[in-house]
């Protein structure tokens, strides 16, 4: 696939990475000096990015590195080396250089834990098959039109968001999904026959709350089947497709929607 289809995915995992996080800050100059020093002295065995190389382990998982503070523990370790495992001693390594190397390694660990995005092409499907799905099995055209509501949708969203929305426009089960889509509609019929309808705000075993066309909020107590509550979901078709959706159909439909420029 051509690079123009490449897009950026924003990391939605891990859960706790979404939360407010106090992260350490590293001096970029020290990190850069450390990177150069590390590359020259350590890169052959441990790799230029410290993730393992010719015989040397991945240092981002090293307990010595993770436990180090400001190069103190690391310097001590380097002065002795680990001769039994073929790691030479770096006797006399200056304190400042050990600190720079430590800064580089700590920044690499931070980068691995908090990586936020990656450039990748996700448009791998067959757009013709996607078009066939749209008009056939997926029954998408029951509600949508490529010359109407979906006109130009391939230009409006990046492919990842488009893939999300094609499968489920509502989202809202947590982090990283698409913004909430069309709301459910509810009709409440009181024993008197009086009816209230509008956007469903909340439905529990005990209450139903809606917002009517005038923007007024109404809450009714529920007692079993009284009052009568009828919910209609504009996304019903998406839910019906969801349980049957194959990855091939998902990729094909995305490939098709991307062409709707």
């Amino acid at each position: 696939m051509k690079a123009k289809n490449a897009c950026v995915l924003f990391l939605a995992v891990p859960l706790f990475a979404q939360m407010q996080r106090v992260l350490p800050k590293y001096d970029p100059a020290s990190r850069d000096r450390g990177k150069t020093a590390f590359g020259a002295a350590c890169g052959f065995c441990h790799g230029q990015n410290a993730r393992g190389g010719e015989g040397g382990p991945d240092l981002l998982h090293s307990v010595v590195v993770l436990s180090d503070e400001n190069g103190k523990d690391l310097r001590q370790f380097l002065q002795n080396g680990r001769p039994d495992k073929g790691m030479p001693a770096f006797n006399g390594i200056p304190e400042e250089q050990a600190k720079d190397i430590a800064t580089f390694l700590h920044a690499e660990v931070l980068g691995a834990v908090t990586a936020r995005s990656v450039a990748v092409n996700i448009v791998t499907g067959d757009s013709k098959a996607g078009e066939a799905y749209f008009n056939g099995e997926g029954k998408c055209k029951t509600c949508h039109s490529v010359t109407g509501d979906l006109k130009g949708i391939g230009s409006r969203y990046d492919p990842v968001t488009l893939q999300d929305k094609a499968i489920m426009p509502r989202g809202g089960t947590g982090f990283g999904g698409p913004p909430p889509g069309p709301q459910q509609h509810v009709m409440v019929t009181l024993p008197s026959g009086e009816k209230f309808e509008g956007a469903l705000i909340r439905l529990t075993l005990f209450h139903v709350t809606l917002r009517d066309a005038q923007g007024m909020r109404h809450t009714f107590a529920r007692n079993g089947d009284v009052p009568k509550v009828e919910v209609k979901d504009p996304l019903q078709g998406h839910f019906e497709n969801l349980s049957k959706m194959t990855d091939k159909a998902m990729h094909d439909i995305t490939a098709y929607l991307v062409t709707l420029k």
Partner: protein
Amino acid sequence: MRRLLILLALSIAALAQGPLDPKLLLKSAIDSWPTYHGDYSGRHYSPLNQIDRSNVKALSLAWVYRANTAEAGAITGGEVKQGDTPIWLSYLGPQSIKAIPLMVNGIIYVSMPDNAWAVDARTGQEIWHYFWKTKGGIHIGNRGVGMYNNWLFFETPDCYLVSLDATTGKERWHKMIADVKQEYFCTPAPVIVREHVLVGMGGDSLDVPGWLESRDPETGDIQWKWYTTPRPGQPGAETWPDAYSMEHGGGMPWQPPTYDPDLNLLYVPTGNPNPVMAAQSRRGDNLWTASIVALNPDTGKMAWSFQTSPHDTHDWDAAQVPVLIDGIVDGQPRKLVAQAARNGFYFLLDRTNGKNLISKPFAESLNWFKGVDAKGSPIPNPDKDPKLDGTLVSPTSTGITNWPAPSFSPDTGLLYVGTEQTYSIYYLTDTTNRPQGYGAIERRLATAGNYLRALDYKTGELKWKVPTTGGPQGLLSTAGGLLFGTDGAGNFIAFDAENGHPLWHAGIGTASNAPETYMLDGKQYVVVAAGDSLYAFYLQ
């Protein structure tokens, strides 16, 4: 008269603050709640029946305790020094009580991340507050305290085990469990079996090893450690490609274990393997991750293991409660362990030997497995591993269910569990030979139905379900024919345990832990947390 006074004095003393009688741990909780699930079985069931189907409508509020997290006025501890930079500190903001409180001799002991309290179980008044000054770590939750004699034990987000004097709240000692610098964080409630304080941990961002350890309740010294992945040459090593992958294979045991005193076996559910979602560097089943493991509490030696998610690639750990059921199968009395697992499978095993009896999906949306192998473990479909262009998978990494305690009622024979049928698209992002941490991202799309479900424990068949707003939830069943739980929309509810009909409810906000119950002064209390508050109910 004098004799009467002495008797009276003795009976008052018996009701006052004081040490935990270890015999209480070996039977169903009546006038105490001395360990995480009330007893060791993990059934989260109470034989109390003062509150029952006929009178639960009259249940009313006894008191509310709002957790006081102010450092001022608290007894403080911690290893942080002035000017230290916080380490991996996250998940800040308002905390909720996820802990299941203990109630011993009229005192409630409850905790949140960095905090523990003693509260008068009759009045809801705070007795003491202990505050731990944190070095950092992920403050996602704290699941409770453990008690031995007059000592309390709880874990902190920066992974210390802290022991307090239950009478005063003063610290006896604290010991480091794991190094927060390596992204460990600690949430479990310690479980105490005789002279063993059983301690687990969490942390899956940095491919570090996991273990369960046993500590001495007096000194805090380590008695044994059991690593959740093997080392080269040990049984299970054949399910990993090399020493590096197993040593960095994760498997955090962050759910408190259950225990059978007759068999003297702990049932430890282990966490997911690492790297979490990019699995190209750990081909194989990855034992003993995502497994229910039976350990001897005196030695830490493994008796048997059953894997619920071989070669997991979706963060579906087995850290759900292993529920011990003494049941009848094919007319024969059997010692069983049941688990409604995060991956959506219900498992029933013989807990003497780990032999599988039932493996059956308990939600309809699962789309990730090809079948079940000869041992009863699901066979994952590799087409549903995270891929560069995305795979649509149910459930999300949060699972069909999760850590909150399910409940089993021996009266109805039903296992009650809160569920959600969610979907995510999983994108592989790290294609290197040695991926790190998660190595994939997840876009959460939808839930196609959340339910409180009641399963027949013998077959895993659904008996009934009630729609809810939330999914996983803590539950309590009682001999009063009741099931206490929530609708996920702010109501605490007493359901009819036979059929799921709601009989009573209170809009206290969505419950954040599993409810518990005990007798005090001849009254049955039901205590539950919602957000930062504990609510106690009884029949007035």
